[in-house]
């Protein structure tokens, strides 16, 4: 388990480096996908399978659209990636920054920021994350209504913004 967590966290940081250092949208979006997937893995490992599932479905659903869109919009014949020299420079600089920051905060970050949701999972009837979501919507049922309303509002906002593409200023490149 420890080895898997090491692997997941390492891939998480590697994905972030890919997002930050890549000049071409292909590989940056790919890095974002890796980061999201590995973040879900971290959540599963620390007692949040339901949250992880929600994040995976919703975020990766959106991410797929972003990936397809950026791949279609910025189709380059020779996209630059980790092989080329400036990208490698960026990567080294960013990784050095990560190492520096983690060396600075090593002691403080280890204990308090690494709790898991279900340390006593055997003694409780519900999992922490599912019980939390249930509590949020039972104590604040109106929040569900408002969230649904906001989704409807967002639909109309997007429709209103993209309406009349031929005469508008907002159009595809």
């Amino acid at each position, binding site marked *: 388990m420890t080895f898997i967590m090491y692997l997941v966290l390492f891939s998480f940081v590697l994905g972030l480096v890919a997002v930050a250092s890549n000049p071409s949208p292909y590989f940056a979006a790919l890095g974002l996908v890796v980061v999201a997937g590995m973040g879900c893995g971290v959540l599963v490992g620390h007692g949040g399978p339901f949250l992880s599932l929600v994040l995976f479905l919703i975020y990766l659903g959106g991410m797929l659209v972003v990936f397809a869109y950026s791949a279609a919009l910025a189709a380059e014949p020779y996209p630059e990636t980790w092989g080329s020299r400036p990208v490698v420079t960026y990567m080294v600089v960013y990784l050095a920054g990560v190492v520096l920051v983690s060396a600075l905060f090593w002691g403080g970050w280890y204990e308090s*920021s690494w709790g898991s949701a279900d340390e006593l999972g055997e003694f409780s009837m519900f999992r922490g994350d599912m019980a939390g979501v249930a509590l949020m919507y039972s104590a604040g049922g109106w*929040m569900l209504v*408002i*969230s649904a*309303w*906001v989704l409807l*509002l*967002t639909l*109309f*906002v997007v429709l*209103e*913004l993209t309406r*009349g593409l031929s*005469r*508008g*200023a*907002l159009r595809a490149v």
Partner: protein
Amino acid sequence: MNPYIMALLLFGLGLGTTITFASSHWLLAWMGLEINTLAIIPLMAQHHHPRAVEATTKYFLTQATAAAMLLFASTTNAWLTGEWDIQQMSHPLPTTMITLALALKIGLAPMHSWMPEVLQGLDLTTGLILSTWQKLAPFALFLQIHPNNSTILITLGLASTLVGGWGGLNQTQLRKILAYSSIAHLGWMTLVLQFAPSLTLLTLLTYFVMTFSAFLVFKLNKATTVNSLAISWAKTPILTSLAPLILLSLGGLPPLTGFLPKWLILQELTKQGLPLLATFAALTALLSLYFYLRLSYAMTLTMFPNNLAGSAPWRFHSPQLTLPLAVSTATAILTLPLAPAAMALFAP
């Protein structure tokens, strides 16, 4: 725009502000701010011309950044102190981050540069909504947190009054001048926020009344530059003679309403033992006063050369509704004698 969609969006504007007002929980407050931003965006871009869409994009990016920072800070707060309540902020790090996020949201001085650019791309009605109604929800949050670092608020406030006066000096575009005037007024509100929050509220309300009148005067004259304002005097002569009073009230000259908040703020700062700060703030108000005075000069105090047809009052009455303008103009000019009542109402 379809009237049903318009109603939906205006309802969204109201709903967002109401949710932020009513919430004591950071998550709901953030939701309210986001609803507000979402609902105004199609209203800003409703004419679909490039300037409006550019302004909308700038506004969206700024507000999204500020809202994300606010959400991040409130999660950090919950993580560090286990507390989601707005009034129970105790840790300095999230409090400072939230202060800065709200400053970005309302456009205080080091984070102000989006405000003139956005306002310049909009028509005057949407600009009015942007510089009045959209400030309400962030200010409700601003009044509720208790910043434990007084230097930040004073720096933000003084920088805003300075930049608001300085930036407006060389402008010829009315909407940019109004944006800088908004920045300067928000700076005054931030300056007194930690000493007397009720004065902040009073300043906000008087600013709303005065800027409402200024926007509606410009809208009635269909003027967005100083040039078109200078030749618009023949359209509604009485309004033209009242407009300098509105502008100088914004500038804060004594017999007018705008003097009231500045007077009370300067008095409060002096009472708190900060005479130097009060002096600086009053001096920066002079910079603002200069461009209000220049607008009054161009609009009323001189007659610019124009052809014969342009300088005679022959036009029909405007079909626009003028009652709100009449009420707000009277309030923006004449309520200084009500100062004791305002004090009793806002600072009991």
